[in-house]
């Protein structure tokens, strides 16, 4: 992507002002989107983005500069802009890079760019037709495919020089169900860190029907009652609760600044005994997986919680310096316009042993969250909120009717102790997590779980 001596020259310039470490990240990305609306292909765009970012460290002081100019001169200019933050220029040290080879756990079989646009259009049409066939109340369907093929080069002043490639493909189908006065929608959005072969393996008609069914259910649901109640959260995207309520607070970006509720709690109980959780960037071809993170550290499987006890944090290079802990293959960024920070990969609550039917039958009155929407968390206070995309009211242990407009709020540090059932049906689902270093693909996941009490926001009082 760039010559070895250009990388060495840029890193050398980056070290002129007293940095103790410098790194270079170069990427060249081909990405495409195609969108269907009103049963027609209404949008198609392709872009090639490429750029380089240079980061310098002196202790925990960092400076980051990026540019699109990948010539030796352009890279050196960016290196000097970053270095200027640390002081005045002195001697430039000699840097020698040694080419390394990245492991490849996530093979890309078919590059998205090699697949004709017509094939993408066919897949979208099948999803559209299947969703519309379900009911005349499905008045609109939007469906899209996004694909991205990213080549990266990572070099640093420890001599590292590695290249890797990643492909992300995803299909999103949103069905809108409408009455005279109301719109409700349902969405399905599977993705993988894989080539176009992932999309060819999907049953897109099934996804279209599933999105439509969810929209129809919500159109005929009444508003959710508000108040504190037990909640059973289904597997798959239900794992967003753990992602928001706990995962973000285990990232070095908050732990390393002493601003996480989980600071200093390694080895301590932070969750109920039945809770085990991991962040695993090595799952083959999973949406959040990596061979190498964006600092060149191999991805790994990180145990976060074992039998309720906190076992580890997610640590990038800066976090490693701040916290005095080893890196965990967690440094990620959206693209070259962001410096990397500690982020999640595929993060989930592990399968437990509880029976899925029993946990509803014995919950009394509460909410069954069959499908979660998105959410967010403040890592300082640990306060989170997320929406229930498809919810059902439970009365006396029986699912009685769909409800909409529900949201769940609480504190991560508290809710983890209130998990009283963990089921067996672990599943993961795909999302794009937004944080300091931009949007990155992540899997969330869990089996069906029950929380003894959560504050449910809704439009009617219970």
């Amino acid at each position, binding site marked *: 992507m760039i010559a070895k001596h250009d990388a060495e020259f840029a890193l050398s310039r980056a070290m002129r002002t007293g940095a103790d470490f410098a790194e270079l990240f170069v990427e060249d990305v081909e990405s495409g989107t*195609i969108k269907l*609306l009103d049963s*027609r*292909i*209404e*949008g*198609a*765009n*392709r*872009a*090639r*983005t*490429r*750029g380089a970012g240079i980061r310098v460290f002196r202790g925990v*002081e*960092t*400076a*980051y*500069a*990026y540019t*699109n100019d990948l010539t030796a001169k352009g890279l050196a200019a*960016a290196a000097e802009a*970053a270095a200027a*933050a640390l002081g005045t220029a002195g001697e430039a040290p000699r840097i020698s890079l040694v080419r390394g080879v990245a492991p490849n756990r996530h093979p890309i079989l078919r590059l998205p760019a090699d697949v004709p*646009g*017509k094939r993408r*259009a066919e897949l979208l049409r099948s999803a559209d037709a299947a969703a519309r066939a379900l009911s005349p109340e499905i*008045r*609109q369907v939007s469906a899209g495919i996004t694909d991205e093929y990213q080549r990266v080069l990572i070099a640093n002043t420890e001599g590292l020089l590695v290249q890797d490639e990643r492909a992300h493909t995803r299909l999103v189908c949103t069905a*809108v169900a*409408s009455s005279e006065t*109301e*719109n409700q*929608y349902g969405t399905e959005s599977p993705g993988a860190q894989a080539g176009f072969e992932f999309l060819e393996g999907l049953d897109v008609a099934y996804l279209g029907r599933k999105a439509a069914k969810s929209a129809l259910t919500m159109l005929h649901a009444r508003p959710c009652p*508000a*108040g*504190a109640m037990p909640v059973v959260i289904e597997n798959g995207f239900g794992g967003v609760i753990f992602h928001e309520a706990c995962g973000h607070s285990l990232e070095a970006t908050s732990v390393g*600044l002493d*601003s996480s509720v989980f600071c200093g709690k390694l080895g301590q109980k932070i969750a109920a005994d039945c809770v085990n959780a991991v962040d695993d960037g090595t799952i083959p071809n999973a949406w959040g997986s990596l061979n190498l993170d964006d600092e060149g550290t191999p991805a790994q499987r990180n145990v976060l919680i074992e039998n309720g006890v906190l076992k580890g944090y997610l640590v990038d290079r800066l976090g490693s310096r701040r916290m005095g802990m080893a890196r965990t293959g967690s440094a990620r960024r959206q693209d070259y316009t962001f*410096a990397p920070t500690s982020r999640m990969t595929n993060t989930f609550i592990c399968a437990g042993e509880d029976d899925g039917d029993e946990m509803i039958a014995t919950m009394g009155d509460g909410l069954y969250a069959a499908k979660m*929407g*998105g*959410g*967010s968390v*403040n890592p300082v*206070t640990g*306060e*989170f*909120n*997320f*929406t229930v995309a498809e919810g059902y009211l439970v009365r006396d242990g029986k699912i009685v009717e769909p409800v*909409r407009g529900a*949201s769940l*709020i609480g*504190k991560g540090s508290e809710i983890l102790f209130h998990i009283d059932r963990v089921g067996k049906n672990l599943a993961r689902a795909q999302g794009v997590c*937004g944080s300091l270093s931009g949007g990155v693909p992540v899997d969330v996941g869990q089996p069906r779980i029950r929380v003894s009490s959560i*504050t449910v*926001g809704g*439009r009617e*009082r219970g």
Partner: protein
Amino acid sequence: MADYAKYEPILEMAKAAGFSRAEVFVCTSEAFSVSAHKGKAEDLRVERRSGVALRGLLGGQMGYAATEAEGEAAYAELVRAAAENAALLESQDEQFLYDGDEKLAWVSAVDGSLLAVSPERKIALALEMERLCKAEDPRIASGTTCEVGTTTSACLLLNTEGLRREFARGAAYAVADAVLADGDRQYEEVAYRFSRKFEDLDPAVIAREAVQMAAADVGSASMPSGAMPVVFSPEAARTLLSTFAEVFSAEECQRGFSLLAGKEGEKIAAPCVTIWDDPSDGLGLAGRPFDGEGVPTQKKAVIQDGVLTTLLYNLKTAHKAGKTSTGNASRPSHLSTVGTAPTNFYIAPGGFAPEELYAKAGDGVRIDELQGAHAGANPISGDFSLSAKGVRIRGGKLAEPVTQITVSGNFYRMLESVQAVGKDLKFGVPGASAFGTPSLLVERLDIAGKDE
């Protein structure tokens, strides 16, 4: 002036490839930012990005592509990708490139003083602001960070119809993110200012505001659920306005994603509600003399005294509706396609001081901050259910701080139930659009908290 000649060859290549009309859009942006944390400048960023987008008409369809690579080979690939995309499309909308050549209302430029500010001065300001946070209250914790930055951007628009337009803007900003520790709890509040001139940023004012807000949160607790009058602070009201702004887009209406479709001329809000889209220079700093298609922008009321006067149109959506473009074609970067978006979009201030709104509310709650709007608000239905914090209003006066509650409602119904509008209009951080609102008193919304 602008280097149009560098990009003319792309238009030629597009014509040679069979495009009947074509347009090149060039974006460059530069930024500098620094964070102060524990007395050190920790996170310094120097940014430079530029890219070129091509769009053009081939067989009646508008093909798009973009690249950040330069040179003939990269531009040939750009033209090829745009042609391939055009061939895939099945849109029934008629597409346009603008051929007007009106003189623009104002000439955009980056304030010269902004470019003269050295990195050292920005670093010093961030450090000073962090020091002032600590000086303001001994409980200020180590998680506190203060950021100072400047951004400039420029774009060029040229097409085969003779259009040649350029635009540049710049801003400086300062943000204090105060974390305050009291007992075993931490409280976080953010205050910020932005301006076209670096000299306008006063670190003492920003630091004090953030710290005082965090101090006011101490001891906050949830409250019992119920339906009650709500006063939204300018920040909270702005979160709702910016989240739901897309419902005013003609594009969203024509796609069936906004319930405002077909409502132009109808009453959709309380008579005290007027919303402006004002592209003038100044205000929220998202003004521009021409839009993403080169069409001159214009100031207009979108809601006037409760009546929806117009949606926001670009050339395509205006043609489809038998109207003229309102100059609201959006194109935030070379990587985006043309859509519709507001410029400086704000609720016109009314006559009430915030205290008068609390008095009118009687017993209720002031909402200061809403979280999770990207997930908990649904522009298709207008429903929202958002995590919030604020202050109880008791007997017409502010009382204890509250947190861990949700406020739920529907944006459309809320517009109808605004009872009074404050005079404290404030704009948020400008992006492609800027949003501003004063405080709003809303008749009744559902609050969920913890029942004792």
